[in-house]
């Protein structure tokens, strides 16, 4: 019940501030289709959507934070998510689909690298991990993975400018909920490699 309440609070907060927490639940699950450019205002390169029930024993199933779907990297490859007008990337939940692996990220604007993680984030197949970067003013987010296999992403959080602080409060509540739900300890780690 507490999880539902906090989730509703998060949704309300985001809605009132015109922030987006993209859950991919309004898209059809598919092993093969990629997300069409323009969905939620972004271009999605190499990103698909799949239902939690598509592979019950996989990280797709354990990686669902809200609704029934997660996004995933097609063929286990690197993906990019872009918006020519620019956006702020707060973070997202990630789960490895098939076995433990690592992620790293880059954020760029107009082809110039603005941010890069210089450490990796280990994700497993058991529980989603919230990875928070708080990168502002990028137009392209690139997500690399170490193993060449698939990961699941949910609650891709990209608020409108000015809502980051508010969203951060709600995000903490969400994290508490997630920790209790999965009896695990999601780690929020700031990138230490931001570049001016």
């Amino acid at each position, binding site marked *: 019940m507490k999880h539902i309440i906090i989730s509703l609070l998060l949704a309300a907060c985001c809605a009132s501030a015109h922030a987006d927490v993209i859950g991919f639940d309004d898209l059809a699950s598919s092993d093969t289709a990629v997300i069409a450019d323009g969905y939620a205002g972004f271009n999605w390169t190499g990103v698909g959507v799949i239902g939690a029930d598509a592979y019950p024993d996989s990280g797709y199933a354990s990686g669902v934070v809200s609704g029934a779907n997660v996004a995933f990297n*097609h*063929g286990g490859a690197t993906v990019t998510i872009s918006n020519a007008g620019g956006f702020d990337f707060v973070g997202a939940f990630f789960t490895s689909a098939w*076995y433990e692996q690592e992620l790293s990220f880059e954020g760029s604007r107009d082809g110039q690298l603005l941010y890069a993680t210089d450490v990796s984030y280990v994700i497993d197949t058991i529980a989603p991990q919230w990875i928070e970067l708080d990168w502002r003013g990028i137009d392209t987010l690139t997500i690399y993975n170490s*193993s060449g*296999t698939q990961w699941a992403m949910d609650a891709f959080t990209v608020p409108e400018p000015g809502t980051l602080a508010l969203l951060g409060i709600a995000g903490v509540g969400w994290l508490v909920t997630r920790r209790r739900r999965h009896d695990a300890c999601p780690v929020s780690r700031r990138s230490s490699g931001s570049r001016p």
Partner: protein
Amino acid sequence: MHHTLSCLGTWAVLSSALLPSLAAAQAAPAPIVFQNAAVHDPSVIKVGDMFYVFGSHLAAAKSRDLMKWQQISEGVSASNPLFLNGASNVFTELAETFDWAQSTTLWAADVKRMPDGKFYMYYNACKGDSPRSALGIAVSNNIEGPYVDKGIILKSGMWGQPSHDGTIYDALKHPNAVDPHVFSDNAGKLWMIYGSYSGGIFIMAMNPATGMPLPGQGYGKRLMGGNHARIEGAYVMYSPATSHYYLFTSFGGLDSTGGYNMRVARSLNPDGPYVDAQGNDMAGVRSDPTKPLFDDASIAPYGVKLMGSFLFERKLGDTGAGIGTGYVSPGHNSAYVDPASGKHFLIFHARFPERGEQHEIRTHQLFMNADGWPVVAPRRYTGETLGAVRREFVQGDYMLVNHGKDISAAIKKSQHIALNADGTITGAVAGSWLLTGSNGIEIRLPGASPYKGVFVNGWDETAKAYVMTFSALSREGVALFGSRLLPRTEAQTVNAVAAELSLGNTSAVTANLALPTSGTRGATITWTSSNPAVISNTGVVTSLSSGDVNVTLTARIAKGSTVVIKTFVVTVRRAGGLLAHYTFDGSLADAGGIFAAGSVTGNRIDAPGGSIAYEAGVKGRAAVFNGASGVRLPNGLIASHNYSVALWLKPAALTAFSTTFFGARTTESWVSLLPMGHAGVGGASMLWSGTAWYDAGLGLNIPIGRWSHVAFTVRNGALNVYVDGSKRFAGTGFPNVFTNTSGVFALGVNWWDAPYQGAMDDLRIYGSALSDADIAALVRQ
């Protein structure tokens, strides 16, 4: 059970893990599946989309993906399909060869498709204890045979007689006519390289129209070796990536204690001269004739050593199970360069730690380093492709194997190092590292020139995960393998070590305890005993004759500044006494009350179900095994190399391999008491140990329907086996199986074979080797 006693068995390993590859589905990659086959000295040829390997003993196998191998043939027999052709078979076809070589088997074969479209098998046979050999050609329209003999093209070992070059055969300088590899050079010219030990490795120009040597060459040109230097298994690969010819050979002896290792030299010309990375002309590499036979020391410094015996050792706290992944005496390779992808493959046979002489085919990729020398992917091929790597995915903790330059039976175990973000290397070695280009690595360690190689993802068979690896070579011809461990904090590390740290069954300890002193990633474990006089801080156990003693052992597990403590209560049994006594008087309880009661299993050691009945026995009642059930005994019943097992048996039927008393450290290391053994002991009752095979045949079968007392005693490898108090076998070198307190024990069942059918009574296990008189007394009781 592994009914093949030698190295010719087929062994399948299936992994439930998943493969990332270009062929993977978008959302769910195909599972990694290995299917293994045994072909010693595998020489590869690709026909269509199928890889074939041909090797010694007329073994062959095929695979489309270099991961799943299907055995085509094994063993030189009249039914071997490679030569079976109506009334003809290998013995009739190659009768002259067998006659000359005074042998009934064949050594490493090589098959090449000639311009006439036919497949030419270069077969060879050797007497073995001397280089008396014959090498010939058999031809087939089909890669899988049947092959028809075309005749012998070379002989060796003609003592006192003129050899092919007109001089009297001299094994110090003339070759042993075995182990051929026939190849076309970049200009289309045909060559055959061959030889083993004796006078060295030779090359001859061949006629592509006939497959025969061109006339007037004698034995051809010597490229390396001589004076019985232990060099063999020559194979030449041309790499379009570097425009060099690479001559692979294996140094050392092929068996599990021979120190076999693969080396390479290169040349711009197919017939040499071949040089190593230091520029040494391999023609000068040979043994010193003034030294004892098989002088390895004179040849060990030369050639670029690509791989020897090694183990990526799984440490406490690491992911997965078992001892880790590695090879023993890997060698006698062939190679293949895929013209479409440019991938280079190394295909060889390998033995394995704790698996004796059993061997299987293995394929690893080769990559050219910055200096044009091939480095071997540390992990078995699973479809990976060399690509750009990111720095955050390559820095961190690694298992490091340094293959060195020696020819040694020692298995090089991995050590923990860290490739740090600041470019330093810390841990077991200190130095520095660089990520060069998109996937290159350069490692600098004191006392060696830079090691140059590549980073590449690989499949960790132990962790069942895809991991970053590196492979690099120094100018001195020394190879480094690295296999990365996923990032962990100090707390995660020590907690993982603590979670796994176990001393097994500590309720009845009779022998020294192996107290681990290290865990994963350099974690240290230090021990403190509450009673060092009974168990020392290093695990030395001193049993007291006065009775059992409880001791508390405290383990301090540390990584950096993080420490966790774990304690164990250990009961040290009275010296030399009866450890366990299962009387089967209506239950499976230990009469001494020390060990837990046995539990009923189904038809395998870990199968549910089953039932055990009881009937009148030798003493009181006895357990009745119905042929579909067994009994699982507590782990750790025996934990030393000094013990005795005695019991009464009344079989209701005799079936080969059905066990009565079974104990195992792992599925590869076990002891089994069989009323009916394998054909190697004539089907007699036996005590058997695998897979470091040991056959203790008793020369009789215990009778059906009548009680027999069977006992065996082990004292540091000295084995005695008794039937009804009479010693039926005495031997030494019995494998040390029960090296820890986690051994698995069962009655009537194992993991593989039909369960025992019959009765069993009065099982006694002692913590020492009883005397002949002690055993006789048990029979009289």
